[in-house]
């Protein structure tokens, strides 16, 4: 029995389920057992990079240091036993039975990419620009779970139940069961996210790369893996082999390509998957804290092979320059917020928001009206997948502070209810050419009715038109906070007669 592999798989499965559970329970009234930002708090990449780029100490720093200390003891256990993206990649990788047997040189070369990416991320962070979000595995996984997985599961269940209930007229116990399911686990409404297909494709690309090479992402790209790899080089837990038949089965089967031709291994690459223990026909492999290896063949200084060659340096220089160009608009000065891009409540400085936001999707997942949606390229490359409010889909609920409560980097500030109620997202503006009372002398004032401000930020002006009193709405700019409920409820189609614009 492969006890250790079984233990690893159970651990991976449980953490993957925990990850999904945490995001699933990240909804009103936020009664999950763990806060939605849990996995980001123990993520050194996000916490260190955001701390460097913002020059602040983010909560979770202690936990991250703890994670690194654990890595110094055990090695990259996080990548092999915890990381939910790594587990998903392992599942996909299981479809591919054999790894290509690569040479040591190529393996070493492939492994370097992630360090360069990590260094670039920290260089950007030093200049005050946080780009850790592009490559962070927790972020990629969370975005997929929140914006793809959960909505599609709930949507299919919703459609299946409603089709069966309607089709067979089962309005009895089955309907009650479905309603109970909706109020307890499914969520009252099926969330929709604009261009979630792009998010899915990005995720699918990363996962399907494991068809090329097992754990492609973890070996070549993952900057969080790189941080752990740096620490794991000094780990106390070691792979030790006793004299063996030199069949090199362990080398050819290693998913991380961590085992060298002479059967020594790159400690920083090993994710402790424990496969090599059981792959070994001579049962010669163990992991132990032994100070002196019984036999540690070819225990050469790895560092000697790790230098970056001139050619590599030039390649990465070019990549850095291109990525700088991609974020050029960030270096040209303050980002100009577009009038139609409404940020979540409490966000005041667009630059700071872009630097803090890691695009994890927590705020969009938790948004009770589904109004917070991912941007694509409307705000340039640097704005991709950041949240913005689309009032047509959902408005900002007056008494709700959820988005600020689940943001792992406080890009959306944690406001008290009183602060939140005064947080200004924009200003509503009435289009007199479309508004029913203004343009057609028809009764309406749905906007005024829904306005949550206690003295009504939308007021009414009575006008006598051919013997009829028509109430015409107008906005009081001193009171309007731009929550967008007026735009959401406005009955005029296709374009709404009242719109919130960013001020």
């Amino acid at each position, binding site marked *: 029995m492969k006890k250790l592999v079984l233990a690893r798989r159970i651990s991976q499965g449980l953490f993957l389920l925990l990850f999904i559970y945490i995001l699933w329970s990240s909804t*009103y*009234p936020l009664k999950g057992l763990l806060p939605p930002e849990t996995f980001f708090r123990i993520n050194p990449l996000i916490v260190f990079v955001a701390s460097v780029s913002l020059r602040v100490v983010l909560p979770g720093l202690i936990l991250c240091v703890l994670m690194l200390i654990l890595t110094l003891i055990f090695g990259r256990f996080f990548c092999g036993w915890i990381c939910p993206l790594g587990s998903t990649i392992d599942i996909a990788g299981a479809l591919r039975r054999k790894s290509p047997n690569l040479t040591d040189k190529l393996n070493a070369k492939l492994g370097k990419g992630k360090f360069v990416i990590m260094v670039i991320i920290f260089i950007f962070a030093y200049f005050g620009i946080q780009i850790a979000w592009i490559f962070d595995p927790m972020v990629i996984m969370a975005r997929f779970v929140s914006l793809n997985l959960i909505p599609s599961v709930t949507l299919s269940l919703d459609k*299946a139940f*409603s*089709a*069966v*209930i*309607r*089709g*067979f*007229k089962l*309005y009895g116990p089955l309907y*009650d069961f479905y*309603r109970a399911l*909706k*109020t307890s686990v499914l969520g*009252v409404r099926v969330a929709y996210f604009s261009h979630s297909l792009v998010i899915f494709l990005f995720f699918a690309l990363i996962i399907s790369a494991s068809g090329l090479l097992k754990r492609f992402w973890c070996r070549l790209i993952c900057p969080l893996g790189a941080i752990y790899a740096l620490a794991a080089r000094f780990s106390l837990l070691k792979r030790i082999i006793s004299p063996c038949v030199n069949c090199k089965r362990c080398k050819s089967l290693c998913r991380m390509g961590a085992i060298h031709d002479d059967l020594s291994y790159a400690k920083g690459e090993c994710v402790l998957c424990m496969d090599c223990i059981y792959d070994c026909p001579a049962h010669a492999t163990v992991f132990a804290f032994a100070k002196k290896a019984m036999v540690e063949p070819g225990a050469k200084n790895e560092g000697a092979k790790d230098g970056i060659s001139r050619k590599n340096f030039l390649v990465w220089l070019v990549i850095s320059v291109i990525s700088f160009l991609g974020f050029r608009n960030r270096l040209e000065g303050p980002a100009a917020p577009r009038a139609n891009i409404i940020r979540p409540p409490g966000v005041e400085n667009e630059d700071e928001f872009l630097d803090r936001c890691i695009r994890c999707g927590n705020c969009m997942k938790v948004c*009770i*009206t589904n109004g917070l949606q991912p941007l694509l390229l409307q705000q340039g490359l640097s704005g991709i997948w950041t949240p913005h409010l689309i009032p047509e889909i959902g408005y900002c*609920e*007056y*008494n*709700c502070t959820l988005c600020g409560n689940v943001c792992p980097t406080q890009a959306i500030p944690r406001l008290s209810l009183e602060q939140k109620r005064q947080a200004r997202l924009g200003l509503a503006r009435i289009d007199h050419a479309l508004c*029913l009372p203004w343009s057609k002398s*028809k*009764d*309406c*004032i*749905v906007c*005024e*009715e*829904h*306005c*949550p*401000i*206690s*003295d*009504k930020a939308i007021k*009414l002006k009575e006008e006598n038109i051919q013997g009829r009193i028509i*109430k015409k709405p107008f906005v009081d700019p001193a009171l309007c906070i731009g929550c967008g409920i007026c735009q959401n*409820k*406005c*009955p005029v*189609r296709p374009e709404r007669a009242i719109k919130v614009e960013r001020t």
Partner: protein
Amino acid sequence: MQNPIRLLESLRQRKLSRREFLKLFLYGLAGLILGSELLRPEAAKAAGFNGRKKRGIKGDHDIVLAEGDDPYTMTRRAIEAMGGMSRFVKKDDTVLVKPNIAWDRAPEYAANTNPAVVAALVELCYEAGAKRVNVFDISCNSAQRTYVTSGIQKAAQEKGAKVYFADDWNVINAHFNYESPMEGWPIIRDAIDCDVFINVPVLKHHGLTSLTLSMKNLMGVCSSSRGQIHSGIGTKLVDLTDFIQPDLTVIDAYRVLLKNGPTGGNLNDVVKMGKLIAATDPTLADAYAAKMAGKDPLSICYIAEAAKRGFGSTNIDGADILKISV
């Protein structure tokens, strides 16, 4: 890609692999869904009126006005004075109690029906032998929040009511036997498929209709873009009330929002009136409540429209009104 016929063939020969079995299962499921979509009963459009039948059960009085300090006891005593709940609710009836749960506001703000009134009604229905009491409202703010903040979900559930969120796919398209602007409007099925409909609005200010009362409260069983009801609201609300035919109307005027309605949000706009109206005629109930709030009933467009059409009575002076103090 195997075709389903070949799969069936291998099923007959009992040579179905797991993969083939799964495929067959999926094909079957797809066929089932497609079939049920095609055979959907809505395709056969029922002509003519498909709303609730008027049951015409009268109380001992046209109107009972309860005054006091405790909305729960006021409700119980008012219904008792009407002749008891068993007059309206028979054994094994399904009852819909339709409060106003539109806004994300606590009970003190008087934007929603008082939870104690709803709880008392649910309790009375079960005491009269109801099989099931449903409580729902299509809210204006997020449903999850309004159900909790209003206190109605908890209060009604404690008395055994089924409190749930209405599904926009579970509707009946309204058909009238006269020309109506509400023709074809999707109405939540449970509002029609119930034996007894008890309408429980809260009396409060409204920017367009000046007061929101029982007829306006019925907008809460309408699906789709309800904002469009606002234009020509008088006719639409009377047609809607005719379609629903509430058996009993209980207007909560314990706390009354006098300004900045229907949402409110400022306790200075709320007065404690300590009253509750029970009636079987929704028009009379609304007219009486309007007068109580200091308005001319005929100045409110839907009451005026009802009066014009002879839908219910607006004759407050000729009504049998019982006032009780609790």
